[in-house]
């Protein structure tokens, strides 16, 4: 842990222990491999920058303990999930009246690869040696399609809300979490909004003005001739401001 | 005796009018002078400026606004009690002002035991607040009402004890008598200033003013209202006219309590009798009945300035800290004060 200073204010700018190009992040991977063995699937180290590791879903909680106790990442930053399937709706800029265009459905995973459509990932920070670790795990669909992974609640108490959020947004169940109520959405809400196949309705019911808002050249032919009329008025209602 | 020359109905009418003025005028003055203007200047803003010159008519605009508003009653409220609660609070102010003497003959009633009466009826408002909190059927109101009850009862005691010092020194429970004994008195044989009890009873004065601050539920003792915790405490469900009554009662109470404080500790309406060679209350010139109230109002404004100043600058205590302060600090201090006063009274 950080040395607690007795004085109220501490002098600033001690040299960070993590220096660029160090063996520090490789050490993290090595330590995790020592603990988890086969549980560690893949890793990626960008020297002096960041480190990613991917563990087997069974090793998810063990990896959490290893990160906390062995690697020394005491500080919990966040936990979330990611849906690697490309969105069938693209970026929501299709004309809703036209038939949907063909899109690639090939799943391309990010760093450290993956085998499943869903991954949970979390980031924890080592405050002593000044580095963060991003850890991922596949969430394979079980029989009848439910996604389950171990909860990190016993590792980091702060994972509580993050897992609730991931549960409602992705439909991933965290085994061992006592209270997976919805955080944001009404209890009876159906669907998991951050899944890629969940349509963003604001973009579905009305053409996105970014596409149709093409100002005609003065004197030139107006190809739309006011028929689409989706010009500047097409606010989608999802960008409302937070009041003071 | 001016009043003795009038028929009884005229006296009664005068008293009613005078009582109304004595309640509403201080309230209006305090609201405009302190709540609107002084607070604004302390907070680097101008305050109301539109209604009348320097916003002086703002008060009437506010009253007009409140009178127009809908009188909302919660469905589950105990309606009858809910309606009379603000009136009880306001009435306690009126019956309190009844004992305040404004001049040698300008008084409403002249009880022999005026101090006793004043302290007794000042706690009637607790009832109003408590039933307002209970009958609103609102949890915030309930918490506010209970807090108010606890607080007002706790601070009643140091207030009474602080006054006892004055009573011992004056040798009378009559408020008029206390005024006379201050102005006719002398300090070590010098009677140029009379003997205002703020000098001899300074500890009592401090305890009294702190208790008054708490009785009036002004910050730092405003937990019953505590707008950041309890929304508006016992007043949460009140709107329009009834809220206005609470509002008037709050500031009228400030006025009346500071009037009483100025009587007890600052010499009330009087000026030192030695200046004009008066010896007793009967020998005072008749013009004092006009000047006396002005002197009273001046003293009231000074004291309520202090009350408001504290209100605008202090954060709020917590309920248990407030109780601890009353029982562990104020009451022992005022008891010691009574003891010392009594000993000195016997010795000299």
């Amino acid at each position, binding site marked *: 842990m950080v040395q*607690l*200073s007795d004085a*109220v*204010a501490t002098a*600033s*700018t001690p040299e*960070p222990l993590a220096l660029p190009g160090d063996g520090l992040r490789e050490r993290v991977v090595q330590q995790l491999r020592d603990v988890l063995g086969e549980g560690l699937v893949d890793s990626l180290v960008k020297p002096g920058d*960041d480190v990613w590791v991917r563990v087997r879903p069974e090793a998810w909680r063990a990896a959490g303990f290893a990160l906390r106790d062995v690697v020394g990442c*005491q*500080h*919990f*930053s*966040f936990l*979330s999930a990611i*849906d690697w399937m*490309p*969105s069938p709706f693209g*970026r*929501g800029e299709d004309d809703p009246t036209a038939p949907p265009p063909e899109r690639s459905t090939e799943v*391309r995973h990010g760093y450290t690869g993956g085998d499943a459509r869903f991954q949970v*990932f979390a980031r924890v920070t080592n*405050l002593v040696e*000044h580095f*963060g670790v991003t850890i991922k795990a596949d969430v394979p669909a079980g029989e009848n399609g439910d996604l389950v992974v171990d909860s990190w609640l016993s590792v*980091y*108490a*702060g994972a509580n*809300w*993050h897992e609730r959020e991931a549960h409602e947004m992705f439909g991933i169940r965290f085994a061992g979490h006592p209270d997976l109520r*919805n*955080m944001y*959405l009404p209890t009876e809400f159906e669907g998991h*909004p*951050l899944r890629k196949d*969940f349509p*963003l309705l604001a973009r579905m019911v009305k053409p996105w003005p970014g596409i149709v808002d093409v100002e005609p050249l003065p004197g030139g032919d107006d190809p739309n001739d006011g028929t689409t009329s989706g010009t500047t008025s097409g606010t989608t209602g*999802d*960008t*409302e401001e*937070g009041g003071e | 005796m001016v009043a003795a020359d009038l028929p009884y109905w005229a006296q009664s009418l005068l008293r009613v009018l005078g009582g109304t003025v004595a309640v509403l005028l201080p309230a209006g003055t305090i609201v405009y002078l302190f709540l609107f203007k002084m*607070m604004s200047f302390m*907070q*680097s803003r101008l305050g109301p400026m539109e209604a009348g010159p320097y916003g002086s008519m703002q008060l009437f605009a506010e009253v007009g606004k409140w009178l127009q508003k809908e009188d909302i009653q919660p469905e589950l409220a105990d309606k009858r009690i809910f309606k009379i609660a603000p009136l009880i609070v306001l009435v306690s102010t009126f019956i309190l002002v009844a004992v305040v003497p404004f001049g040698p003959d300008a008084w409403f009633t002249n009880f022999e035991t005026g101090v006793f009466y004043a302290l007794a009826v000042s706690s009637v408002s607790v009832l109003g607040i408590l039933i307002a909190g209970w009958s609103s059927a609102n*949890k915030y109101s309930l*918490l506010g009402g209970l807090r108010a009850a606890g607080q007002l009862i706790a601070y009643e005691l140091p207030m009474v004890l602080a006054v006892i010092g004055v009573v011992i020194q004056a040798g009378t429970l009559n408020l008029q008598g206390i005024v006379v004994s201050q102005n006719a008195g002398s300090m070590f044989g010098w009677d140029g200033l009379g003997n205002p009890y703020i000098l001899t009873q300074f500890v009592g004065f401090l305890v009294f003013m702190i208790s008054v601050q708490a009785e009036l539920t002004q*910050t*730092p003792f405003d*937990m019953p209202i*505590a*707008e*950041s*915790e309890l*929304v508006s405490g016992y007043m949460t469900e009140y709107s329009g006219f009834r809220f206005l009554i609470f509002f008037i009662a709050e500031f009228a109470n400030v006025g009346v309590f500071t009037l009483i404080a100025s009587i007890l500790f600052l010499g009330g309406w009087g000026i030192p009798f030695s200046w004009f060679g008066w010896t007793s209350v009967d020998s005072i010139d008749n013009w004092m009945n006009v000047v006396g109230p002005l002197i009273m109002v001046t003293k009231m404004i000074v004291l309520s300035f202090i009350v408001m100043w504290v209100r605008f*600058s202090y*954060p*709020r*205590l*917590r*309920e248990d*800290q407030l109780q601890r302060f009353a029982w562990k600090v104020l009451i022992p201090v005022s008891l010691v004060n009574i003891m010392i006063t009594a000993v000195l009274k016997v010795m000299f």
Partner: protein
Amino acid sequence: MTDLVDRQKLSYIAAQAADARLNVELETEGMTLNIGPQHPATHGTLRIIVRLDGEQVVWADPSAGYMHRGYEKLTEVRTFPQVTSLINRIDWLGSFANEVPFILAAEKLMGVEAPPRAQWIRTILFELSRIANVSLFLGDLGVQLGAITPVFMAFRDREYVLNLIESATGGRFHPNFDRIGGLKDDLPKGWILETRQVMKKLRNFCDEIENLLFGNAIFQIRTRGIGIIPKEVALQYGLSGANLRASGVDWDLRRDQKIPLAYDKIDFKVWTHPDGDSFARCWIRLQETREATLIVDKLLDGLPAGPVMAKVPRIIKVPEGEAYVSTENPLGEMGYYVVSQGDLGPFRVKIRTASFNNISIVPWVLRGVFVPDVITILASLYFILGDIDK
């Protein structure tokens, strides 16, 4: 430190006792109190359900989501430059600070670095939004405790800072000024001189608040020893910013990470406090506001000349990759985990906001405290609804 933990244990025992009393028949009946969603103390629409025994909290459960705007979903249908106008609205008191980490993440993926002048101006604006944000906290703190005067001072002096931000960026609350590769524009003429004067005023304001509020005995007894968060717990819950430093953890992302901002070019102090109570959190913020004004002054001294925009393609496509960049925002660590698949827009953006973590500790820290302390603890944790709900 040990006695503080003991205190926390005591309050936990008190909560247990209160709990036990609730279960005894015919003795007391607990009361469930909804603080919020519309309540003067919740800065928006946070709802906290507290179970009371008398005025003591048996348990508390914050319920967020009344302002959820779905930014993580919305970012997926926008291009990289468009995202900044969304994320401006996350922490609406210090908007510019929201843009910076996202732009830095995008730049990191693209391998672009903003020119030095842009980095310095970014840092200056970043600190200005910290001042605009935290100065309001300092005033609002008074209101939560019943002192009504500080908040007007805060609004008065915050106005100067907002004017500065407006004259530099064109937007008072939502600048939307940061671009991938630099900034939209250079600073206007005379801005630097004015900024120095405003920083002097803000330091004055800090002194005023310190005298009026922090020196007040009532303020001290209301906040000292209340809502203690030991550092182990703070780390577990992922607290960040002033809340973490108030628990004695010496961690500041401005200093402790390599980031293309100008923080490493100047010397500044990171304030910590060993107590971990409400007072410590408020005190740290006061010191940080003052420190931020000094940082701005120092940055203005060394502001380099040069362009404010690097060469970036007109249509920005971010190469495939993942990056997490976080900065020390006014509320704490704010980071964006950006996943790009070589498209015009991000594939997934995970927004790590500070208040989300900071508020998730509320059920833990509110056990066994009194209702008035609920308010002071919430105020001292300092959250902004947009920052919780995203």
